[in-house]
């Protein structure tokens, strides 16, 4: 069974408050986390041998 993700209004409200309080730090943290997650996804795809889109 798929697990529900905690991303509701409370999370959005807290996130928005953090963004408005210190946008530079908010986006710096977000950028770092986004790169970490993207790197994990790329590595997972490479490890799984998933072909690039459009490739046989």
């Amino acid at each position: 069974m798929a697990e529900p993700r905690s991303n509701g209004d409370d999370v959005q409200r807290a996130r928005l408050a953090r963004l408005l309080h210190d946008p530079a730090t908010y986006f710096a943290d977000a950028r770092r986390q986004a790169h970490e997650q993207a790197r994990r996804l790329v590595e997972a795809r490479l490890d799984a041998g998933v072909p690039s889109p459009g490739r046989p």
Partner: protein
Amino acid sequence: MERFRAVARPVAVSAATAAWVLGAVLNNLSGWSFTLTAATGAALTALAVGLPLHAERRARERARSAEQIAEDAGARIQLVLNDALEPLTYLIGRITDQRRWTRGREVVELQGQAKAVVLSAAAEVLGADRLRSCFFAVTDERPVRLVPAGFHGRAEAPRTTFEAGTELGDHALDMLARREDLFCADVRAASPPGWEPGGHAYRTFVAVPVATESRQFGILTVDGLQVGDLTDADVAAVRVLGRLLAVALNT
């Protein structure tokens, strides 16, 4: 694997050179003919091993670049969607949730927050460092003007005012009226009509309308210090932010 490659290369060259030397000895070569044969053998072997290794290194570098590009693209999508657009759309939902008859100071406050979110997102999610985003609000007075009404990023407040009746002002207001955007890759190479060179720290900028189909609120700009800080690919993200700001302001 890397250690194996590091060992394999000198072993391959040494073994192949030894084969040439052995061949020369077995053929009773000596003196200059032996030296020439051994040297030629070493050089040809190094070439035979070196060229595929060079190609392999190039391929590895390209693969690393492709991985980096894939990572950057994935990170950027996540940054724009998760970290910029999601809180902004949540905020717009709160604005539209306000009952029409109770709207007042709270809506104005929420709209101010939406403007702050859009400006910070526009300056922070596009990738390059030290970008600056500015909002120029259209005024009701005559002549119509676009005046600075907020910025984020580099600590240089915008000073330009676009006034109807001037070449630059008419160009900006016309762009807004037609809901068009403008990407200037290098202001020194190709600048808008009426542009005054000098006095601007930035070299490249994007300008998009902040408007719905029936109402216009101003223009949103993002500028960068270096040519290449902004690309055509950035315009769509700025346009979306401009449109969402218009929705937030359209109450």
